[in-house]
């Protein structure tokens, strides 16, 4: 067991996959000799060489589309969009090309590519460098999207994304870049499924589903609630497209309470989807109204005091769970 940082886990998995498969190429701004803005591609250029590690111009539309063309013809591109906010500059190649070509072309092509990015807030980066767009990609058939929240998950999900034959979005967290986590021998080579949530901590009183960065405040809230005798089950949703409702449902069936927390805005988000499915398919198990938490419907503000208030917090999660526990049992249950 060693301690590894989030960004190091990414560099390790990517390097190993590039050594393993000569079809994997790395493209993006500053991914080469400079080693990436977060040092997350450090050393790859030196190991793999200039042919397969390509610094691109600042031209997301062009280089993501080029990656699609490369994927159609036999390469397995791994493409960096440094900040998740910049996805807006390449939505066409992602949504109209990568996601649809296989279907549209009658199954004649596969598009094995990874687009990785760093998203979310917490670094006072302001409205254009702090966003989480995860729900957008849940809406697009043909894409897969995952959000690793720990160094071990970065390892396993990066490997899985590169080996998958579909366009996969690896939505990593800026806030967690330097997070250290335990990585076992097995984690180093693990290939995680791209459609499975992870039950991080068990508990019988309330299911709390998180995405990305929010796993960590949820675990803090868990410790706090434990002091009050409340045991929450923390599930890292991990996969956004598809959402692993099965794992969540199994937990809710036991706890009877459901809270979903994410950094993306609430309207039509993962929380909305999971709550809708819970209400549609298992209303009889719900002891109280299921809840969602996310930032207010405003752009992510720059000022540290505002951003702190903006993002979901451990305190907020603990308060919401306490309120849910104290709420009288739903009337349809009582009747």
């Amino acid at each position: 067991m060693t301690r590894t940082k989030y960004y190091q886990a990414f560099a390790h998995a990517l390097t190993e996959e590039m050594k393993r498969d000569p079809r994997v190429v790395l493209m993006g701004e500053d991914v080469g000799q400079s080693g990436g803005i977060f040092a997350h591609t450090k050393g790859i250029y030196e190991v793999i060489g200039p042919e397969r590690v390509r610094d691109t111009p600042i031209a997301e539309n062009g280089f993501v589309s080029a990656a699609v063309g490369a994927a159609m013809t036999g390469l397995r591109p791994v493409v960096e969009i440094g900040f998740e906010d910049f996805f807006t500059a390449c939505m066409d190649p992602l949504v109209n090309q990568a996601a649809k070509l296989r279907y549209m072309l009658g199954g004649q092509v596969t598009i094995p590519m990874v687009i990785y990015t760093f998203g979310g807030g917490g670094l006072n980066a302001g409205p254009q460098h702090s966003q989480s767009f995860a729900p957008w990609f849940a809406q697009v058939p043909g894409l897969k999207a995952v959000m690793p929240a720990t160094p071990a998950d970065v390892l396993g999900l990066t490997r899985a994304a590169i080996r998958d034959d579909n366009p996969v979005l690896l939505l990593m967290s800026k806030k967690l870049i330097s997070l250290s986590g335990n990585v076992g021998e097995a984690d180093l080579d693990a290939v995680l499924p791209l459609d499975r949530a992870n039950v991080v901590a068990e508990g019988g009183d309330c299911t709390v589903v998180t995405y990305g960065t929010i796993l960590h405040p949820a675990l803090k809230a868990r410790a706090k609630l434990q002091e009050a005798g409340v045991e929450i089950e923390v599930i890292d949703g991990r996969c956004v497209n598809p959402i692993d409702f099965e794992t969540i449902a199994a937990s809710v069936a036991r706890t009877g309470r459901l809270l979903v927390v994410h950094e993306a805005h609430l309207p039509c988000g993962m929380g909305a989807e999971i709550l809708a499915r819970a209400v549609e398919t298992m209303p009889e198990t719900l002891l109280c109204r299921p809840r969602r938490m996310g930032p207010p419907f405003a752009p992510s503000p720059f000022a540290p005091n505002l951003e702190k208030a903006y993002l979901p917090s451990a305190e907020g999660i603990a308060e919401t769970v306490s309120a849910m526990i104290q709420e009288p049992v739903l009337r349809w249950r009582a009747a």
Partner: protein
Amino acid sequence: MTQNPQSNTRQAADLYRIMVLIRRFELAASERYRNGDMPGFIHLSIGQEACAAGACAALEERDFITSTHRGHGHCLAKGADPKRMMAELFARASGYCKGRGGSMHIADMSRGVLGANGIVGQSMPLAVGAALTAQVTGSGAVALAFFGEGASGAGVAHEAMNMAAIWKLPVIFFCEVNRYAELSPYEVHCPLERISDRAAAYGFPGETVDGEDVFAVHDAVARAATRARAGEGPSLIEAKAFRWHGHYEGDPQGYKTADERASPESFDPVARFERNEASLRGLSETDLENICAAAEAEIAAALEFAEAEAPATHASMLEDIYA
């Protein structure tokens, strides 16, 4: 082009055959679309046949093309099967896209046709990607992106050409100027007389050719392909042509001049070939008639095939979303 007279004649016959095949395919599609036999939208390239035929004839089988929403000619010229193309236009299960793509998405990977594409401009970076594959794997293949002057004003056109230049990719940017971007005449959206002048800004050669002259198109692309295969990087070729029909079938074309509307055939690469080139290159009237008759028969067979085929299956709606 080779100097050997026999192969010269054979090549001329082939160029003519492809142009006529495209013309017949699209005239048939136009008629059947007007009759209500085809759903959706179709965009025809009648008048631009020399671009598709000349460009693709200068490529090899292993080479790639990317195409546009106006792509029937490009696909046919690169060897796609008119039967399966027509079946796709009729939304049949045996169409190239199983009835899920339609006219704007015909592809034949076995022929290096990476697909027509409904998003203007994307043919260029997609071809850059195919060229990147060729470069990384050392396959020796070349990629050619068809695009129109409408796409030339898109940001992604610049991104694609800039990237291709940086990496010296084996790619040919082939701009087919048909005088209109959708419904807007050339002058409305393009400040330059020659789009090929832009190549200088990327540091690679640009050339404008007469898009009515299939040999001029062929020779320009052949030069660019040789250059690309030698590792010398991209080229931009602009072929000046004319779109006989509207942006889409049914387009009232109010933006065309009275002359353009009255006599589109004043620009006609097929007639020009018959008039100026055929006998020079050893093709008799009878040769031309035979080629036309064969194309006619091939398109009739394609129509017959497409009509008889089963519609897209319901099961196929949920297939091929993921690999």
